[in-house]
């Protein structure tokens, strides 16, 4: 100990003086973690800075509201923007009810230690680890060929209506990809609802169903929204799952029905950067599109965050 080792020079050293070794550790850790944070911020700044710097001049109402022209070296991103929004919306409509229902079953109804419950949990965890291109192939095989092809055989005498890549199949494939996110977030949210509230409801003669519907779920809504935000951000950015299931290289028109193909911002970026006849000419367009995708994800996230904050405020605290 320093206190013992140091000879008395003037005032005796405090018995609480810290051992030098610990101080060195503190400093080293502070420097290392500070450097790590700095690196992360730097990377983010470079990416965002580059995109904003080159992309911002391209952004205009015309850019958002016109279709690509002149072999995609001119014009805007309207079909891709609408296609992405439509896909994300359909995906959300599909994934939230299924994910929330699954989480409610797992958390509220399933016997916790049963083989089935454990099996479902393992399946969900594994689903989250599957590479996204595999989801794309799954979507092609299951939704497009099996479900879509089956529908055609039954209702359209074998004519191709549903049995081809389409907005609906892409959205459903993306929904399967984001399902674990929603399930896990909802389960966490349900877990966080205090037992006291459930007991209060049950002690008043509520059934389990009423308790879940009127007490547990309303409490869990902010958490469910968090899951939805994550799912939406993921869904807006992923391209691999929709590659075989519905996205189009170029479409001058918007999709008119669920069985039409659609354009997607992420795919459009890929197309612009690799498939263009004149890469240099498309570069400004490419920057603009990347910025638009970032903005779209940001706006989607922000709106969900705002809604969540509103829900939390509604009854938290509540004193006048």
């Amino acid at each position, binding site marked *: 100990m320093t206190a013992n080792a140091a000879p008395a020079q003037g005032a005796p050293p405090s018995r609480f003086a810290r051992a030098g070794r610990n101080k060195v550790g503190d400093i080293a850790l502070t420097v290392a973690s500070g450097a790590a944070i700095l690196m992360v911020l730097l990377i983010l700044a470079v990416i965002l800075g580059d995109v904003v710097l080159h992309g911002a001049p391209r952004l205009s109402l015309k850019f958002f509201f016109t279709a690509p022209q002149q072999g995609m070296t001119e014009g805007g991103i309207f079909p891709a923007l609408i296609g992405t929004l439509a896909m994300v919306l359909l995906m959300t409509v599909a994934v939230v009810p299924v994910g929330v229902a699954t989480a409610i079953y797992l958390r509220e109804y399933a016997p916790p230690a049963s083989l089935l419950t454990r099996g479902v949990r393992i399946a969900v965890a594994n689903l989250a680890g599957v590479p996204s291109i595999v989801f794309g192939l799954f979507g092609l095989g299951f939704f497009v060929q099996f479900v879509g092809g089956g529908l055609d055989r039954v209702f359209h005498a074998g004519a191709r209506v549903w049995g081809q890549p389409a907005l609906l199949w892409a959205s459903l494939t993306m929904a399967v990809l984001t399902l674990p996110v929603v399930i896990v977030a909802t389960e966490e949210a349900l877990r966080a609802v205090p037992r006291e509230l459930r007991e209060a409801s049950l002690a008043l003669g509520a059934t389990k169903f009423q308790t879940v519907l009127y007490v547990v779920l309303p409490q869990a809504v902010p958490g469910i929204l968090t899951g939805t935000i994550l799912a939406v951000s993921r869904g807006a950015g992923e391209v691999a799952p929709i590659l075989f299931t519905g996205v189009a290289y170029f479409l001058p028109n918007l999709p008119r029905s669920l069985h039409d193909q659609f354009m997607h911002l992420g795919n459009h970026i890929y197309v612009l950067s690799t498939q263009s006849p004149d890469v240099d000419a498309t570069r400004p367009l490419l920057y603009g599109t990347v910025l638009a995708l970032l903005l779209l994800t940001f706006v989607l996230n922000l709106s969900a965050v705002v809604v969540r904050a509103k829900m939390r405020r509604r*009854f938290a605290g509540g004193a006048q």
Partner: protein
Amino acid sequence: MSPPSVTSQDRNQDRNQDRPTKLAVRDLSVFYGEKRALAPMTMDIPEKHVTALIGPSGCGKSTYLRSLNRMNELIPSCRVTGDVRLDGEPIYGPGIDPVVVRRRIGMVFQRSNPFPKSIFENVAYGLRIGGMKSREDIAGRVERALSQAALWSEVKERLQDSALGLSGGQQQRLCIARALAVEPEVLLMDEPASALDPIATAHIEELIDELSHDYTVVIVTHNMQQAARVSDWTAFFYMGELVEYDRTNNIFTKPSKSKTEDYITGRFG
């Protein structure tokens, strides 16, 4: 705060009157997994009286209370044997819906647990889930329940405010009002005042006294003075067994078991 309307003289008179049995407990025993939490016990809980359950922590009094309205069933490993009858009707047994049992036997918990809803909606909750639709009926019952819980005058101006903005004592009275709104016959209270300051506790005790005119009240308490103040009958639990059950006066003045005497005189627990 107005003094209790009944003088202690009247109260003692009242305490000595025999009332019909509301809850008849026969050989009730509770297990958690293989472990027995309550030894078989038999007890008659009189109608429109206050029955206090006292004893040191972990003696099984809360477990006992929760087995009177089948709340213990929410713990997966919990198993109950024996018989509990409400007005002669068994509450355990095939075909008995615990939901219906709990509507007739309400409960107030140790920690006040208002829903994160408005004051009004907290009290209306039990009515709505019970299928009551008419706004006027609901509003009338909410007002009556809040008045019974001695909270109406404090909250009538702000029924739409969040219940979480109330003080601790007000929240607990709100929980009592919420339980009363569904008009149960029996009210079980699990240490309803243990988290409250002395003034709020006095409020609750006064309230319990009032409620015993209309309801059968069973209250678990850590506080022996409280049991002596509010109850007509007292049951002393120790290590999962019912040691003694008698009129409160007798328990506190001439207990028949030495264990009871040791406990109430503060020699242990």
